């Protein structure tokens, strides 16, 4: 393309460009400036001076992070919680969607569906507040367990590390079960009904039809969401854990994101915290790309 043509195009598209450029500027400021800011992971940054004046220190902070006494603990917490979410939290919405689809009464189905979305619209602060109330020593759970004689004295569930992962998984499922089922329900409603009719003629029962028609038909959707879930394993649900964590359960609630917050914002170790954050983002990208590649090889379904 020669210059005259480009100029003509620029003039033709001046309104379009005026609409697009503010978005580009926004991205440069709010996405790309922080990406540039990652360089403080390799510098000794002090908040009183601009980034450019800080001294280069190479991999000092990265090595310090790997050698930190809590490094393996936070890695274990991050991946442990994500792994449990994956094996318990991931299949449940699929199961729920399939079962809901089998409900024959349409109004009932609709009501169940509407109720199932409700918890998604609660904030994590509200839900976390409810969880903390229920799990406290005078809370509902202790009340029930005591009155059934299952425990002798109240257990402060939220103040103990050993229960924390369970609290996170259960509250996550409670909040997102119905919401995450939306996609599967839509995929199921797109299945050709004549397949079910043919199966019925062949004498197949409900479970058989679910196993041989419904599940294979939504396998593609499941695969894509699985890739995303695995690619997301390094990201904890910050909003959730930030509400539920406390100093007493820190050994189970200290995930990378929380660690970055504590080190950077609370202790002012900006360079060190940025190095920890960079480790997380890089591993997340590698995880996403490799899961995608593996699934593509096996299954021929992929995200990109």
């Amino acid at each position, binding site marked *: 393309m020669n210059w005259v043509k480009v100029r003509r195009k620029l003039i033709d598209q001046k309104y379009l460009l005026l609409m697009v450029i503010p978005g580009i500027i926004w991205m440069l400021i709010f996405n790309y400036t922080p990406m540039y800011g990652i360089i403080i992971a390799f510098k000794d940054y002090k908040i009183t001076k601009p980034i450019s004046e800080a001294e280069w220190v190479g991999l000092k902070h990265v090595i310090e992070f790997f050698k930190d006494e809590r490094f393996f603990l936070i890695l274990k917490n991050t991946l442990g919680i994500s792994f449990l979410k994956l094996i318990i939290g991931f299949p449940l919405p699929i199961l729920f969607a399939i079962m809901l689809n089998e409900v024959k009464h349409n109004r009932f189905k609709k009501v169940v569906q509407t109720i199932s979305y409700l*918890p998604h619209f609660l904030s994590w602060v509200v839900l976390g507040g409810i969880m903390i109330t229920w799990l406290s020593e005078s809370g509902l759970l202790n009340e029930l367990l005591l009155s059934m004689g299952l425990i002798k004295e109240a257990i402060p569930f939220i103040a103990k590390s050993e229960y924390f992962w369970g609290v996170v998984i259960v509250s996550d499922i409670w909040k997102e079960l119905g919401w995450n089922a939306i996609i599967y329900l839509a995929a199921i409603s797109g299945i050709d009904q004549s397949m079910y009719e043919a199966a019925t003629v062949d004498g197949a029962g409900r479970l058989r039809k679910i196993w041989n028609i419904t599940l294979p038909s939504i396998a593609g959707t499941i695969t894509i969401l699985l890739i995303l879930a695995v690619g997301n394993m390094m990201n904890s649900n910050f909003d959730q854990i930030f509400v539920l964590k406390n100093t007493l359960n820190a050994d189970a609630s200290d995930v990378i994101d929380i660690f970055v917050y504590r080190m950077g914002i609370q202790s002012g170790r900006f360079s060190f915290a940025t190095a920890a954050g960079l480790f997380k983002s890089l591993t997340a990208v590698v995880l996403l790309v490799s899961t995608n590649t593996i699934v593509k090889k096996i299954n021929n379904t992929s995200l990109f």
Partner: protein
Amino acid sequence: MKSNRRTKSEIVFDTVNVLVMLLICFVLLYPIWYTVVHSFNDATDAMMGHLYWWPRKFSLDSYKAVFKSNEIFTAFGITAARTLIGTVTSVFFTAMVAYGLSKTELIGRKFFMGMGIVTMFFSGGLIPTFLLIKNLNLLDNFFVYIIPSLFSFYNLIIFQSFFRELPKELEESARVDGANDFLIFVRIIMPLSKAVLATIALFNGVYHWNEYFSGVIYINNTNIQPIQTYLYRIVAEASSAEMMANMPGGVRSTTISSQSIKLATMVVTTFPIVCIYPFLQKYFVKGMLLGSVKG
């Protein structure tokens, strides 16, 4: 004989299925109901426990305390303001950029799209973002709720996939009449896109209503904290709620524990969303699908 047996197993299947669905509904609703019951019960009485289904000693004291508190009132104002301003500006801004970028003939389109896609997979992270906000003088500034969430590339993709499906004839006839691209966007595209605008507005609105962390990390001035941040603070530090119940002009601290004020604030905060979401169901279901197919 055979068909009879199959009907029997069908009945068993259906019964079990419906029972499981009812159980799920109960499990999802009960925690919310429990919170409502406790917020309407006398606080001292609630301390005795075993309060499950209906207020034992009905009392509005917790709600009176909530509505009397200036801090809570201000926080609600901030939440309402950020939800309204944040949603309107973000939806308009993102839609405008999306419309421009949906034109395949646009100069540099590939480059701009690439820039956006990178942001979906990689970000600067918490600390560099915090430093940016600080350098922009957005700390302790109401606009920290609005400007950093003005644009979303994820929503841009949803908008784009919708704009591409729109009929081209109207745009072309407007162009012949001499309208420029911006006017076409405002006068023709926006009115045709009500469904997708409503979907994104709903997601944005819920985000603004429920978001609490920017109030924790960027705001020290309690006069500009949103209600969720206020709630976070009383959830995290139960002691601050004790203080509120004992404040001058507050209702007697014997009838109100920090616990019941917390519950009443939660109910008041959640109430508006619970009332409107069932009516917007078709929009968010559609939005989820658009987002998942193209995203």
